[in-house]
């Protein structure tokens, strides 16, 4: 009974964590793709927004120009995809693992740049947010949530496997062997 309660509690937390991560990534993608001024949505506004995001990626001074453009143009759509994937809950072990890798990479780069004394924008949710202790704390917390969701999803999957085996009907014993 206690195990069942803890399992259901764990599932609730897992769902909450998954939804939080999904919301964060969907908002991050929206913030990077939306028009960065008083203009309507259009292919031109998206192109401008991605060019502005490329400037933020470049401000970290870690990548060559070609890589900056690649990251700037692929990351927002990937965040959109990842957010939707987390929202559906399909193959949560894999989506959460990819989330951990992505957030881990972001956090490492942010810490490195902050320790190097770079006065730049975070670029996490569009322009205008300075890289500092608050952004590091926030992204570190999200990374912790992602790790917890990943571990939880693997544990629940592991516990589900014996239950599925126990629940499956026993194979009939062939005649003549009784």
């Amino acid at each position, binding site marked *: 009974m206690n195990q069942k309660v803890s399992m259901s509690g764990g599932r609730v937390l897992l769902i909450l964590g998954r939804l939080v991560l999904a919301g964060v990534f969907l908002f991050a993608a929206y913030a990077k793709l939306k028009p960065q001024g008083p203009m309507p949505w259009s292919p031109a506004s998206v192109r401008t927004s991605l060019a502005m995001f490329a400037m933020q990626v470049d401000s970290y001074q870690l990548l060559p120009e070609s890589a*900056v453009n690649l990251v700037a143009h692929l990351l927002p759509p990937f965040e959109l995809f990842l957010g939707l994937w987390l929202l559906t809950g399909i193959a949560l072990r894999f989506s959460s693992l990819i989330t951990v890798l992505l957030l881990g990479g972001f956090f490492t780069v942010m810490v490195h740049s902050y320790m190097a004394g770079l006065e730049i924008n975070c670029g996490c949710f569009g322009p205008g947010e300075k890289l500092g202790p608050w952004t590091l704390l926030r992204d570190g917390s999200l990374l912790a949530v992602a790790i917890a969701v990943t571990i939880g999803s693997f544990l629940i999957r592991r516990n589900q496997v014996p239950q599925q085996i126990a629940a499956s009907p026993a194979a009939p014993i062939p005649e003549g062997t009784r």
Partner: protein
Amino acid sequence: MTQQTPWRRVLVGAAVAALGILIVRIAFHGSSLPQIQVTASASTPTPTPAPPDPVAPASALAEVQPQAATKSASAHAKAAAVETLGPPIKTIGSKDAPIMMEVFSDYQCPACGSLFELTLRPMINDYVAAGKVYLVHHDFPLPMHPYGYQAARWETAAARIGKFQEIDAALYDNQKFWSADGNIEKYVAGALSAADFRRVQKQMVGCALETKPSQGCALDVFIEQDKALGNQIPVKQTPTYVFTNRGQRLAPGAGPVAWPILKQFFDSLN
């Protein structure tokens, strides 16, 4: 005859005394300039007014050209006394350009120096010269930099005589040298002619080295105006830049950016 002589002496003495008083007044108060009321828009930050072309004469300045040197000291004194200067012109390029880039920076900030050398300089030679971008500089000296405010004063003084671009480049080119000892004057002098340097130096009277504005320095009002504009953005670090494309202001950016990446952004706007 004997009655006219004393009167003549009195008149000559009075004229000499008046001339002496005039010379003394000019010597001690000749560099003080009339207070210029500057108002910043409370609703929308506006750039500093600029001449249409950096090559064209700075017609926006209410400047009286000093007269040719004469042997008479009164002529020199009178010329210096009547020189009035307008607000500083801290812009490069044509204001008719479709894109305006406003940069809030601190001359002692290393990232601002990098931005100038690696990004703004090629941009000035390329897109600003081609009339695609209009560059506007705003001073935003940070209190952590002991000589940043003083550097802004020198640049502001130079901008009031139409020499902003020369001093802007000189300050960034020699940033690591004057940042070490605060000797900014040497590099300003090296970037100007002797006559222009005197005109700039005269404006620095009363501007003792400080990291905050002082009532005795007539240049500080312009720097504080820039800071007020920056606080409306708000500027949280330097360099911070704000783009306006055909009258539409975009979200601000900050930090270093390579010229090819910035150029790509400009190309995406039009």
